[in-house]
């Protein structure tokens, strides 16, 4: 590896993005081992790299995903549970040159917010949706989400998620890629440095294609929820890397550029 690249990586790791609010201004929202703040940092880095902090407007729903937004020192709109794609529609239509994105959880986007998502996809709304997939409702205590794996124990599937009763995990990135009005759809994770760097690229591509007016862009990001998975932070990373990625393969599912 060339020395410059190593320095760049070290800089990325060590330097604090200016678009992250200082920690003393934040309510302590995350559990030990949660990688939602890693996603917050990732978004801040990308916005900063694109010099888009002045034009960025983040739209948030309800749940641990919204705490990611709280970390960012950009303009933010927080509304009811699941409605961030609608908020983003209103914000983007009023200021089409702004970079408007949502940060939502899997329950927020795919369950209660599914009709808002469908509407935005159908209209090819020029927004970016970033969805955190940790397979459970984190804030309310680890209940089953549309993304929970078959057999997964959650607070509302105490005997394990039974497919006959609860159905199968929803694959958002693959589904969203099938829409004509979607320019970009990808799934990443931040469990390893390599995955962090790929996901960073996905988010950047999604933001860029929004600014080009290519269509709706989407990035799903797998994160661990040690508290509600009842695992140690290290064990939850292993489970994510070995089991969750089996169900939810990483990569790009649609890219208008290719």
């Amino acid at each position, binding site marked *: 590896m060339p020395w410059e690249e190593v320095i760049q990586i070290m800089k990325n790791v060590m330097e604090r993005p200016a678009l992250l609010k200082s920690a003393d201004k934040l309510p302590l929202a995350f559990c030990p081992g949660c990688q939602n703040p890693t996603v917050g940092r990732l978004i801040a880095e990308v916005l900063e790299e694109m010099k888009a902090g*002045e034009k960025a*407007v983040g739209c948030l729903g309800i749940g641990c995903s919204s705490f990611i937004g709280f970390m960012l020192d950009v303009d933010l709109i927080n*509304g009811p549970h699941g*409605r961030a794609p609608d908020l*983003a529609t209103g914000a983007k239509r*009023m*200021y089409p040159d702004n970079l408007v994105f949502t940060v939502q959880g899997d329950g927020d986007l795919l369950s209660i917010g599914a*009709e*808002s998502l*469908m509407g935005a996809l159908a209209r090819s709304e020029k927004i970016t949706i970033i969805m955190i997939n940790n397979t459970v409702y984190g804030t309310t205590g680890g209940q089953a989400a549309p993304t929970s794996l078959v057999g997964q124990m959650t607070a509302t599937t105490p005997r394990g998620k039974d497919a006959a009763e609860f159905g199968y995990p929803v694959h958002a990135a693959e589904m969203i890629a099938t829409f004509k009005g979607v320019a970009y759809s990808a799934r990443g994770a931040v469990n390893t440095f390599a995955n962090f760097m790929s996901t960073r690229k996905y988010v950047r591509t999604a933001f860029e294609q929004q600014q080009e007016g290519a269509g709706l862009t989407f990035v799903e990001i797998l994160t661990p929820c040690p508290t509600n998975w009842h695992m140690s932070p290290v064990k939850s990373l292993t489970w994510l890397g070995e089991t969750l990625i089996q169900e939810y393969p990483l990569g790009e599912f649609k890219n208008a550029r290719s």
Partner: protein
Amino acid sequence: MGDKRLLEGNVAICWGAISAGCQAFFGYPITPQNEIIEFCAREFPKMGKVFVQAQSELGSINMLYGALASGARAMTGTSGPGWSLMQETISAMVNAELPAVIVDVQRGGPGGQPIRHAQQDFSHCTRGGGSGDYKNIVLTPASAQECCDFVQLAFHLAAKYRNPVIVMSDAIIGQTRELVNVEKLDFGPIPNSDWAATGRGRHKDGKSRFVEHAAGFSPRYPSYGAFLVQLSRKIALMEENEVRHECYRTDDAELVVVAYGYTSRVSREAVNRAREEGLRVGLIRVLTAWPFPHEVIGQTARKGCRILVVEDSLGQMVDDVRCAVAGLTEIHLVGILDRHLPTDGGMILPDKVFDKIRAIMVDKDHTPCPGKR
């Protein structure tokens, strides 16, 4: 300078919105509101304004939330069932202090009851419907002209109090064509919206904005309690300053009709006929369903006047009148069961109101509403 046009009430609402500087309309088709969404779809883009047909009323109200949070002057329009769907977000808008203008062109219920006009959203509009403590000003136009004027007032009041304002019309008012003087009404300067999330680059201080509905948890207020204090002050101010009503021939009246919307025009005609027959009858026309004109109705009751409520429902405004009257006089009702057709359609006609006035005052064979006197 005004500009006289022949407009349906619903279209007059759109021209009022344009006069008020409305920049965006978000809506979903629903009868009897469709003239609004179709007009906006046709005309707004030509004027450089935003129009979006949402996937549902959940969509339209939340798009409105997003646009208002971006500092826009914007509105939505709907009818009963759509109005129901919007409640969660209206409650959130009150917390977020967003200046929403929402038009509810009432229709019948409960449930679907498609395309049957009625005035059955009074309680729903005045009592909130979303969770938590809140109040919205509810303006009740009774003509196409008032549709045009009241929506402008709604934009002004919404911005003044940073609180949603409802324009509650009905199918008869919304779809009746009348001459309207489309005139820009001046309510004074528009408060700045420096708080809005327009992108950090647009703020003079360069600081980021956060529009949220979690006052107390967020740094907007030092605590939840501080937010509630501010909210209660706002509600008190609206109650103090924004009660609107109109008295017609009430000075020497022995019976006063209380009505709003289309039934207030019906009542006015009945009052005129009664006066021709020498009956001392007046009309209090309610222009704000909330804050309700309790005081004037209370004074009327203290003078010993009997009250006749005319509303096209089973009796919702009656509850407010009951509070105002405080047991001091009889309250009678002409309601939805008094329509000229007992079946699906029909409306309350002046004849029926006049008959009831006679029954109360002359024949003395009308049973008042229970629970008073």
